[in-house]
């Protein structure tokens, strides 16, 4: 294990511990790897830079388009 991996696993362990979710030390490495993969998968989203989008106040934004010609 290199230093970066060790740091990552420590960070993962701290996150889970702060959430009150116990994870045996032998399983932290697997979760840390999944966390790295998930973060990599989100890079495309981060690259889009959301700075100029309007903040969303509701998940259900779709309610704004309720009406159509079937009424």
């Amino acid at each position, binding site marked *: 294990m290199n230093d970066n991996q060790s740091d990552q696993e420590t960070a993962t362990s701290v996150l889970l511990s702060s*959430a*009150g979710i*116990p994870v045996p030390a032998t399983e932290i490495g697997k979760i840390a790897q999944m966390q790295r993969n*998930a973060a990599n*998968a989100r890079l495309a989203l981060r690259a889009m830079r959301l700075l100029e989008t309007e903040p969303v106040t509701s998940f259900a934004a779709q309610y704004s388009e*309720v009406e159509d010609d079937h009424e």
Partner: protein
Amino acid sequence: MNSSDLAFLTLVEARSLLERGEISSVELTRNEIDRITAFDGRLKAFITVLAESALEAAAAADARRRQGERQALLGVPVAVKDLFNTAGIRTTGGARVLADNVPTTDATVVRKLHDAGAVLLGKTNMMEFAYGYPHPDFGETRNPWALERTAGGSSGGSAAAVAAGLAYGALGSDTGGSIRSPASYCGIVGLKPSYGRVSRHGVLPLAWSLDHVGPLTRSVADASILFDVIAGFDVNDPASAQVERAPTSSSLDHAVAGLRVGIVDEMFERFVRPEVHDVAREAVAKLGQLGVHLESVTLPHLDLIAPVINPIVQAEAASYHRHTLEDRPNDFSDEVRDNLRLGATILAIDYLDAQRARRWILDGVADALTRFDVLLYPTQPIVAPILDSYSIQPGATDDVLDVEIGHTGLANLTGHPAVSLPAGFTVDGLPVGLQLIGRMFDEASILRLGRAFESATNWHRHHPALEP
């Protein structure tokens, strides 16, 4: 009519026989239970079979019909995924954690089925807590068309039961494609209604900002009937929408000529296997013969579907299961436990960014639906995977769940109604599904077009040959 012919009637046809007094609910129900007994040992479509209470309910339905009652589903045998609460009946969510869970009340949609006179055959198998992986205590539902393949998830039990003629219809839930994906793999119809259109009260959540409830059936008309029964506002579901619409069955046979259909070309290419591509393109050509106006459409940000939906599912699921994860971690399957732990590591800013980016995707679809009545692309880019396979083909590194959610997750993020239709078969005899997406709360248009398509193709009349 032999047992198989009886079992593969559509719900509409079975109901007509009941209405004409040519068959009883007891006969229909006994035939289904006999088939479940014969076939489900291999399929694993059911977690709980309610043989005794179903026959009692069927006898009661026959008596009520003799007294002149005529509810929409009176005496029709159906099944529900094992995440819908059923009063006095075990509801496991496909999980060891809830192995002994017996709710005291029905989910709203289960109550609506009962009110409509349906006979509940049983509770269908599913991925553990609808989260992409089966728990070993229950095993994975096999595909009736190819037993070495999955029925899909997470509503695989509902899909397999309907495809195999073990129920005339079933309910499922859909957070990233869990109705439409197994419907596609099993060659049946699966409808994910608009977000808020069908109550989730009494339904175990996976991710509440994405969860939907809907029917799986052998025909579009059957889906229309079940949808009309379960749709409607429910004060007990905080996301329930107060929207009034005419029953979809009232416009099901209206003309489709002139409907504007947008073909999402990118989704015919993204991860799409050649055998699926060919079947889907043939289906589009068939639609063109129905007089609809077909035109290509480009939707923005389709590459972001998986990166946006995954952190939302992961974080919301981890929140829901947080305390069980603390108290009983070893009662989860390894895969679900790992994914829930992963969800607990999602940072708030990543969850919120995903919800903000969701708006981009919604705006793109909503804009397209100002120019088109319906959007269209293959439900899934692949056929039903071999059991326990995690990549889309041997040697590939693409994760099956990411590929699947990248196709079906779009309508979960936007909330638009979407239906998967049987669109044909590959040369290997595996079903392929075609997905239609409609405007908010306009389930009627996608069902109407679906009905016209299935009438022209009859793919929904193909059934798997099962051996006990």
